[in-house]
């Protein structure tokens, strides 16, 4: 087995196990920490796909900021093990698990059986792309500039909205 293959399988194992733990852990803090682990794993997978910049961003944004927020909020709530951490209802439960399973099976089946992917492979073998960061930035700022700007506006709106949502009386800057 090549180094790449070993790396892929290790990362897959890490990602899947930690993702499984996310939904199986009854303590939400462990869930969150496992999710952070998943994020780091996904970042590593990005590295194996030559997307270095995205891997860094994944680390900074997801693992470094979003998940820290999750963990902070959970710790602030100080939630212990939950008694009813899974939804009840035998029929709906079966339906839910069934639909998820079938969905996964369908996608996996479609991917492995699908023929059109062979053409894609041919493209990948011809292409030698080392530094995707520059291409990514050119694509982002030249071709998708409108989307980029729209996202900026979205973030601004979100920032204002979040502050408005979580603003409460008191705090370090209360005047009255």
């Amino acid at each position, binding site marked *: 087995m090549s*180094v*790449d293959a070993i*790396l892929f399988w290790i990362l897959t194992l890490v990602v899947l196990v930690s993702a499984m733990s996310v939904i199986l852990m009854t303590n939400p*803090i462990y869930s969150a*920490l496992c999710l*952070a682990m998943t994020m*780091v794993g996904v*970042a590593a997978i990005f590295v194996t796909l030559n997307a*270095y*910049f995205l*891997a*860094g*961003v*994944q*680390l*900074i944004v997801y*693992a*470094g*900021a979003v*998940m*820290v*927020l999750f*963990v*902070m909020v959970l*710790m*602030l709530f*100080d939630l212990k093990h939950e008694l009813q951490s899974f939804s009840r209802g035998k029929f709906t439960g079966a339906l839910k698990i069934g639909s998820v399973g079938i969905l996964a099976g369908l996608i996996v089946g479609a991917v492995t059986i699908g023929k059109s992917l062979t053409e894609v492979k041919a493209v990948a073998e011809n292409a030698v792309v080392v*530094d995707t*960061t520059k291409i990514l930035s050119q694509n982002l700022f030249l071709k998708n500039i409108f989307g980029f700007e729209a996202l900026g506006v979205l973030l601004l709106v979100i920032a204002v909205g979040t502050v408005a949502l979580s603003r409460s009386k008191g705090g*370090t*800057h209360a005047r009255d």
Partner: protein
Amino acid sequence: MTSMGTSSFEITVNIIKTLAVFLMMVQAVPILVWLERRGSAFIQNRFGPNRVGPLGLVQLLADAVKFLHKEDFVPDKANRFLFYAAPVFALIPASIAYMAIPMSTPLILGESRFLIQGFEINVGIVFILGISSLAAYTILMAGWGSGSKFSLMGAMRASAQIISYELALGLSIVGVIMTYGTFNLTDMITAQMGALNFSGFGYTTTISWLPNWGIFYQPVAAVIFFAAAFAESNRLPFDLAEGEAELVAGFHTEYGGFKMLMFFIGEYGHMMIAAGLMTTFFFGGYLIPYITPDDVYQFGLNNFGSETAAHIFNSAVHFLMYNVKFALFLWIFIHVRWTLPRFRYDQLMDLGWKTMLPWALGNTIVTSIVIFSAAYFSISFPPAVEDVLKQIFKYFTRT
């Protein structure tokens, strides 16, 4: 995974090198602790540890033995898993991130080329930022896992502080990245070679008595970066997380013995990353002012005769230079700790969000505008004015 080398020799050396860098980092900690204690004593007009060994240097060894012998204590309400996991995790981000910082010119031995750094990553800055942002988890794990109010408070404060200052930190670096036009740390250092020369608007001016360091291009970014680095590593004046007057000792209140020491190592590790990045971004990295690596190599070749020896000499000299700069910044860290008082929490947040973030943003905008206009517009002065300018700036030329 070609970065690990192509032949078994290279792979072996690279693995050893990685380990060496890690151990170097860990071993620097006791020295820093000694420095901190002696330095604080010097500042406060005391003696500090001076009994064990020369200048008290062996005090560290004694301390280490003492730490190992301490009782392995877990509070009753603590979450045992997290309580134990936190100090171990504290080491990881700092050490991994530090490995991305180049410390000398690549060492060339025959066919092989070894980087004097843990590993080279093309997007070095992003990588370091990403990895060091993981440090917030260890703090949160420690704080929550201790099952103590003070610990939790300290952890909340610390992680909020880290997240807040990460913004200013990241934004201040954007200006640097734009100036050098690369994410790669080695490329950045190479770009700082030679004498300071500004070029743009169709002119070039060279100031031969100054090195071409980033601090002259991005002074605002340097100040913001350095200040935010203090906050990132939870050092005074930003060590709100462990404000003794309020929180006993913050997130590591319940820790003692070797586990405590590991947090220490983590903190010093962050300091080292900050010092290393300061050196790399703004002070020419391992480069020696006025001298290029080629000069050093030629000097080595002339004096030692053998190419290999010249290469080793070259790398060693630059490694030394790097360490001089690096130590200087570490000393500034320590000096600041013992001279400045602690901020209040709201002052801290105000400084982060209302002062440093806007300045960093402004710096980014101004930098981008200047870079763009310098590259795309050219100004032409009348000949008379040009002469006067040439008198003022000796190496003012039209390109």
